């Protein structure tokens, strides 16, 4: 027996206090004067003896309470043999089933090795089987059931996830926190280099885990892969859609590869590409001729390597008609439509077609067929058209209003509704122009437009910005771009013109992304990517779309979400490669091509010295501890403070009881 904090034993001196109070102080009772002892007799009553006994019991309890308290603080322990604990060692078999284990016979080799380890263990030893991908998947609980363990090993299937030794270490750390028993970890893996975390420290295992490695691959194998595909998620004009693919070779010699673009199972185009040794080559397909609706596409190479899973890259494309944009302007203004249409057609991948109509002729136009409307610096607006525009916005339509010199003469901005406070000409400024001072980078219109840096504004209309969101301001704090929600629709106000008279914005490179982003923003069209990676998450609904059922159909044609999950799940993790078919909460149908993480395609293995360091770090400790086993096995400290505190509690209760009885007697006497 020993003490972890022996200095606290000094506190035992505190027993002097009750000793003094009970014994010494009691005998120094001050005599009380009395007029005459004529009627008194010296007599020791039996009740006094009883009370003295109780008094001594109280003293003993108080001494015990103090001593136990001191003992508890000194943290006593006894050395208990840990032989029984040693026999309770857990044999943990972890089989790597990441995407790279599909190469050759790696997974089968790993399962065979695991089975042989299971067969060689003592029957009384408990074992547990887990599979390692991006997460550690528990296949069995700790058990001695050999049949169950073997079944679990055989049930391990290759996955498309990316292996992570960092995740393995993290999971084992949390296991070690909950269980103090030693763990003998057998890892069956191809020891892929790309599975290592960035920091080696992140894969160091806890001290009570001894690592035994079972590598199923000892050297890097050549592998070709379609590393990435850059393809649009939506196509409006097939002739303008382009597909770009990067073909990578890992530990491969220079070779010619045939690259095919496959659309809905049919080869649409083929290219030959020369891939340098352990290098990359880019292939470009100039058109993507897909039918209307969703098409399932892939870029495929002929590689004939050991890992065929990464020889193709999947993506989905949706073809639809381009949106229509109505551009209303004064008859005399020919520049604004020219600049806007040029920017729209060059940037937005032909997602929009623009119709330019003078405002005087637009009274009878059906606004509902347009994705959004541009109202460019009109001096007057026919009341019919103004009413139509207001109704269009209230019902969910969007309008971009440009307020140039003509609109600046009006008392209020049409459709937007804000009063015009002042029309400002900056030609009298020192530099004859003003730049944008503040811009809200969260707003889509300025997000990619480099905050309109360098754009010169010679004229701006200052409007009342109450009730609207100011997206950008000039350096004199004049709001230059404002956003306002009206009804279900949206109106964006540019407090200057779209020509190159009131500013040089149309001539500026930032104008194109501004027009593109504004067009997508106002039309409500989302830019979608048709491909994702395994283990990434798909958002199924927004916070406003609760209690609406969604539908997910995985590449195997199964519906992985239960009915409850279909109404509550916010997102879904893509677990395997292939095409996922989705019906989202907003009612939109979608198809997503999912590919394995291409870092799994690099089959390079961890160098032996690193592996030795990894297993040696832990194994050295375990070897050291096993060497000391005969000595240390018998000397594992077992803390006793908890039991001592229990005794303290009991002593305190007993002391209170005896003290209350003693004092109670005294009260009766009084």
């Amino acid at each position, binding site marked *: 027996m020993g003490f972890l904090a022996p200095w606290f034993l000094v506190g035992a001196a505190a027993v002097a206090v009750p000793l003094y109070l009970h014994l010494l102080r009691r005998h120094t009772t001050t005599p*009380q004067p*009395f*007029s005459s002892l*004529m009627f008194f007799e010296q007599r*020791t*009553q039996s009740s006094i003896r009883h009370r003295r006994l109780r008094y001594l019991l109280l003293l003993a309890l108080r001494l015990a309470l103090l001593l136990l308290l001191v003992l508890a603080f000194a943290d006593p322990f006894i050395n208990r043999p840990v032989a029984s604990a040693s026999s309770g060692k857990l044999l943990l078999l972890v089989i790597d089933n990441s995407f790279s284990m599909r190469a050759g016979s790696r997974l089968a080799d790993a399962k065979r090795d695991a089975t042989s380890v299971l067969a060689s263990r003592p029957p009384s030893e408990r074992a547990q089987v887990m599979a390692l991908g991006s997460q550690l998947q528990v296949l069995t609980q700790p058990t001695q059931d050999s049949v169950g363990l073997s079944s679990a090993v055989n049930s391990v299937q290759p996955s498309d996830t990316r292996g992570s030794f960092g995740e393995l270490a993290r999971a084992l750390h949390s296991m070690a926190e909950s269980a103090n028993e030693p763990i003998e970890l057998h890892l069956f893996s191809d020891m892929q280099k790309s599975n290592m975390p960035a920091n080696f420290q992140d894969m160091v295992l806890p001290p009570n885990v001894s690592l035994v490695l079972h590598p199923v691959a000892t050297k890097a194998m050549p592998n070709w892969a379609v590393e990435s595909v850059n393809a649009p998620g939506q196509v409006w004009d097939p002739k303008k859609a382009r597909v770009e693919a990067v073909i990578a070779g890992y530990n491969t010699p220079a070779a010619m590869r045939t690259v095919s673009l496959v659309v809905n199972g049919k080869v649409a185009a083929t290219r030959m590409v020369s891939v340098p040794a352990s290098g990359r080559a880019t292939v470009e397909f100039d058109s993507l001729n897909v039918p209307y609706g969703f098409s399932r596409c892939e870029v495929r190479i002929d590689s004939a390597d050991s890992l065929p899973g990464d020889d193709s890259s999947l993506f989905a494309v949706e073809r639809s008609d381009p949106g229509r944009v109505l551009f209303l302007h004064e008859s005399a203004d020919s520049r604004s439509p020219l600049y806007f249409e040029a920017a729209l057609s060059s940037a937005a991948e032909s997602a929009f077609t623009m119709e330019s109509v003078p405002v005087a002729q637009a009274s009878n136009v059906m606004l509902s067929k347009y994705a959004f409307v541009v109202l460019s610096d009109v001096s007057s607006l026919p009341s019919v058209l103004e009413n139509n525009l207001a109704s269009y916005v209230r019902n969910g339509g969007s309008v971009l209003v440009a307020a140039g010199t003509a609109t600046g003469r009006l008392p209020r901005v049409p459709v937007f509704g804000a009063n015009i406070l002042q029309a400002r000409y900056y030609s009298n400024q020192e530099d004859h122009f003003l730049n944008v001072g503040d811009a809200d980078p969260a707003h889509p219109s300025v997000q990619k437009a480099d905050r309109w840096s360098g754009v010169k504004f010679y004229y701006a209309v200052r409007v009342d910005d109450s009730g609207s969101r100011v997206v950008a301001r000039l350096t004199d704090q004049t709001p230059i771009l404002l956003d306002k929600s009206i009804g279900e629709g949206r109106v964006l106000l540019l407090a200057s013109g779209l020509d190159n008279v009131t500013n040089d914005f149309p001539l500026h490179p930032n104008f194109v992304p501004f027009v593109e982003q504004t067009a997508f923003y106002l039309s409500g069209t989302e830019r979608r990517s048709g491909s994702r990676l395994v283990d990434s998450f798909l958002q199924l609904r927004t916070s406003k779309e609760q209690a609406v059922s969604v539908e997910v159909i995985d590449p195997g044609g199964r519906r992985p979400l239960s009915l409850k999950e279909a109404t509550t799940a916010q997102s879904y993790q893509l677990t395997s490669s292939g095409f996922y078919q989705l019906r989202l909460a907003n009612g939109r149908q979608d198809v997503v091509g999912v590919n394995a993480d291409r870092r799994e395609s690099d089959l390079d293995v961890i160098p032996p010295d690193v592996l030795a360091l990894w297993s040696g770090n832990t194994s050295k400790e375990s070897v050291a501890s096993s060497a000391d086993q005969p000595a240390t096995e018998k000397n594992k400290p077992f803390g006793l403070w908890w039991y001592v505190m229990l005794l303290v509690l009991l002593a305190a209760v007993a002391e209170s009881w005896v003290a209350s009885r003693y004092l109670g007697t005294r009260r009766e*006497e009084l």
Partner: protein
Amino acid sequence: MQRFLDPAVLARISDLDLVARTVVDGFVAGLHRSPDFGFSQEFAEYRAYTPGDDLRHVDWNVFARTERAYLKRYRGETNSLLTVLLDASNSMNYTSHSVSKMDYARFIAASLFYLAIQNQRDAAGLIVFDDEVRNYIRPSTRQGQLARLMSGLELAEPHARTDFRKPLDHFQEFLRRRGLVLMLSDFFEPPERIVRTIEPLRFHGNEVVLFHVLDPREIRPELGEPAILVDLETRERLEVTPEYAQNEYRQKMATHIDELRDRARGAGMDYFLLSTERPLDEALTEYLSIRQRRN
């Protein structure tokens, strides 16, 4: 006024004369229309004047009607000599609250002196004793007698232990004239011995009254735990248990009081038990009313 007669309140007044006046005036006021209180205030008879009598006592109304001089005599004239025997032994120093037995006895004595001299114009004297006679002030009606008596009371500090026998021999010398003898003591002696010692005073025709002054804790002691008690007179120590003090002591004290009362009355003496927590006027009123009934 009543609250001033609380012994605890009076103990804060340092002037004994003032204490006496406060007590007497207080309880006189409380008696309302009772002029015939005191030792000798009640009219008894007329006596023919003889040379040497004090002319102040001649009833001039009777002389005017009858042309004969008569003196007006009162009943009190037969015992108009008041002597207070004050026990000044150490046991009188005991107190369990703000008033010691000695103080209480002083207050009683002072009040009686005041009553006798100021109200009755009787002669009053004082004998202070413990195991010896410590002070003796001869009874007198002279000017300044009250001040002398008060001073004697002030100087009466408890010293030794009580012994009635030795001072009583001296009392015999002092008490030649018969009168009223008041003894203030805690009487921690066997009742038989006390009465036997004091009894001779009675033979001279004195009227003897025993004032038994006791502290309430002497009658009903309260001990929370076993305690060591020290006798104030003998310095003897004794460990006493609360149970004993609770039961047997009280019984013994009650027996002692009863026996003393019985023996005193049997010997023709009056006996009054005075607890020091009792208001002074209440004690005096009781005493005087009992005396009045007897007379």
